């Protein structure tokens, strides 16, 4: 599905990714974890073509992404910070993104699911952080793409929306889609993900199931397993 080979990225003097090799197979939920500044977002943005790697190859669904924009038809991306043009109305934004990508009717179901009907006529600048995130989720999930990338999807969500989001993610997985998630909420990761990828200092430190991670670190629970990696590496 996604093949990353020997990926290097430097921002100025700051080496963020130094030789990442990662293969993500089709189907299932993968969580990309790591301490702050470990390069999670850079990795995801490289896959999306927003960050241009210094070295290395990325293949998404068999297409090399270099100088290519068509492959993004197959990706749904939820950005970390949802900041939209403030004098645009919610429904205008949804219409616009549909116009830019492709027509869909899925948005109606998602609007209902996240209960944002009453905000459709409001301008995006007037919305609270959580509501913006819900709009963001609608924009992401309304296209039925085989690969979904979620950067901190839980930010600002209330508990009930969080439950709906989890159900949504599970439903998408049941359709056979591949979902990449980054999050700092360990309980969320533990609940939804099938496999985790741990990035440390620009390299893949661990890739496998949560159970394997617990065995490797000899910790009884997931949160402590992650903490033990971090304290062992002085990160």
């Amino acid at each position, binding site marked *: 599905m996604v093949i990353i080979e020997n990926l290097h990225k430097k*921002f100025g003097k700051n080496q963020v990714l130094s030789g990442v090799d990662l293969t993500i197979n089709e189907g299932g939920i993968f969580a990309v974890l790591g301490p702050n500044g470990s390069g999670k977002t850079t990795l995801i*943005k490289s896959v*999306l*073509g*927003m*960050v*241009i790697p210094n070295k290395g190859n990325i293949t998404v669904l068999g297409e090399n992404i270099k100088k290519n*924009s*068509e*492959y*993004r*038809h197959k*990706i749904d*991306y939820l*950005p970390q*910070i*949802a*900041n*939209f*043009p403030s*004098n*645009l109305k919610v429904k205008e934004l949804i219409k*616009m*993104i549909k*116009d*830019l*990508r492709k027509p869909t009717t899925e948005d109606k179901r998602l609007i209902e699911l996240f209960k944002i009907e009453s905000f459709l006529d409001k301008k995006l600048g007037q919305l609270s952080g959580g509501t913006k995130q819900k709009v963001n989720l609608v*924009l992401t999930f309304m296209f039925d793409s085989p690969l979904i990338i979620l950067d901190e999807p839980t930010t600002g969500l209330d508990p009930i929306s969080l439950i709906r989001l989890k159900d949504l993610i599970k439903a998408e997985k049941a359709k056979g889609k591949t979902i990449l998630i980054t999050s700092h909420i360990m309980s969320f990761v533990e609940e939804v993900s099938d496999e985790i990828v741990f990035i440390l200092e620009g390299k893949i430190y661990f890739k496998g199931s949560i159970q394997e991670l617990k065995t490797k670190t000899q910790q009884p629970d997931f949160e402590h397993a992650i903490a033990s990696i971090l304290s062992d590496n002085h990160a």
Partner: protein
Amino acid sequence: MLKILKYSFYDLMRSRWSYVYFAFYFLLGIVLLFLNNDLSKAVITLMNVIIVLVPLIGTIFGVMYYYNNKEFTELLLAQPLKRSSIFLGQYLGVAISLSMSLILGLGIPFVFYGLFESSAIWDFSLLIITGTFLTLIFTALAFNIALSNENKIKGFGYAILLWLFLAIIYDGLFLMTLIMFEDYPLDKLSLIGTMLNPIDLSRTLILLKLDISALLGYTGAVFKQFFGTSFGLIVSFIMLSVWVLLPVSRIIFKSKKKDF
């Protein structure tokens, strides 16, 4: 690209600033035409305002639009769109909406004044054309500055400096060179010097069209010989087009290599 252009254009058409900018030219046009009653004087005053104000507004608007829309640009970058179409679309959206404010703001009062029956229509057209060129040039330069500077404050600073340099400092340096080397023949040098600054080029074009070049003395005569001919006019418009094309191609080049 056209879709992005459409949305940026609508977005700007809805913003208060487009109307303020439009209203400014509209009022200026009305005041100059109906309180002054001398068309060629009105055109000269307008020229003086346009030559300074259009580049300033173009630079500030361009930089402001880019920084304000940064997050949204990131959203667009994750969509199946080419980078060049995103940035060119946004650039044209800003440049076209600014040009519209200028053209409509000045055009409407002039039409009411009876532009189509007067002989000043060519002077007026030249004024509008150079104004539009200046908008295209300075918005493109502003996008270049914004693309190269992550830091908003720095970006704004450079943008203002650029405007200050081309609108004021360049003329001062130019004049000083002319005075320092006054013993030498300077006609070629001053022609080239004028060509290299879009603001000077626009000003000279309009002044010569208005037939007040006699005021400029000997240099005026040389300029008249060059810019007054159709050859000079064509060369000037080519230069203005180069001034648009160079920064626009750098927008495309730079945006392809940038990380977001």
